């Protein structure tokens, strides 16, 4: 059971977890990303490539389903303007055992960061704004999963 969503609305983490818990497995793992207010950040703007984003999420999710014995996974990624403290992304996985749930959850968030077409722009209280640069460390983490 795969559920993938790209949306402007907030993420209902309770409902996402409940859906995973209802699948009858022994373990549910999840990651929730929150907008940090570092350096006077007032707003984070999420740009994406409609159509390709959904395709990329499907590809990433199918890889996780093929690689671990999962009962289900759910990915929700927000787009648009977000304030510090708001949820930006949710990844949840359900499996019979914890290892598959935890590993696949980490895999999904690492791959999402480097293989799905989202871009973040930071706006600060003093009026400055800048696009977030991709981190080589994120790319290295995603590639690490190819060698496991």
């Amino acid at each position, binding site marked *: 059971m795969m559920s993938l969503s790209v949306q402007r609305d907030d993420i209902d983490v309770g409902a996402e977890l409940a859906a995973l818990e209802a699948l009858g497995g022994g373990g549910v793992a999840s*990651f929730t*990303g*929150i*907008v*940090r207010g*570092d350096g006077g950040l007032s707003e*984070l703007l999420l*740009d*994406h*490539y409609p*159509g*390709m984003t959904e*395709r990329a999420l499907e590809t990433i999710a199918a890889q996780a389903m093929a690689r671990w014995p999962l009962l289900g996974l759910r990915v929700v*990624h927000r787009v648009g303007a977000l304030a510090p403290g708001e949820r*930006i*992304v949710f990844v949840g996985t359900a499996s019979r055992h914890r290892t598959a749930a935890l590993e696949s959850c980490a895999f999904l*968030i690492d791959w*999402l*960061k*480097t*293989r*799905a*077409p*989202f*871009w*973040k*722009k*930071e706006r600060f209280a003093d009026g400055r704004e800048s*696009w*977030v*640069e*991709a*981190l080589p460390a*994120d790319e290295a983490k995603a590639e690490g999963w190819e060698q496991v």
Partner: protein
Amino acid sequence: MAGDLALLYFAWVREGIGVDGERIARPAAAATVADVIAALAGRGGGYAVLADVTRLRAALDQDFVTMDTQIGDAVELAIFPPVTGGAVGG
């Protein structure tokens, strides 16, 4: 229109050029993504954001491709910076 190639721009590429996208006359099938980007950069003005291809990534018909990929029969070329999804530093 048949015979055109649709271009899409995202993030600071879009802001620099000043439009979401446009259509251009179809390049030769053997032309690469880098060839198309170099031709666009040569227009000057806002297209100068395309000057350093090492800062850019691309997708043909919604699949990530390398800069040496040939355009072939693709109908949509997207040009953008490296992606930055997920949580900030998360």
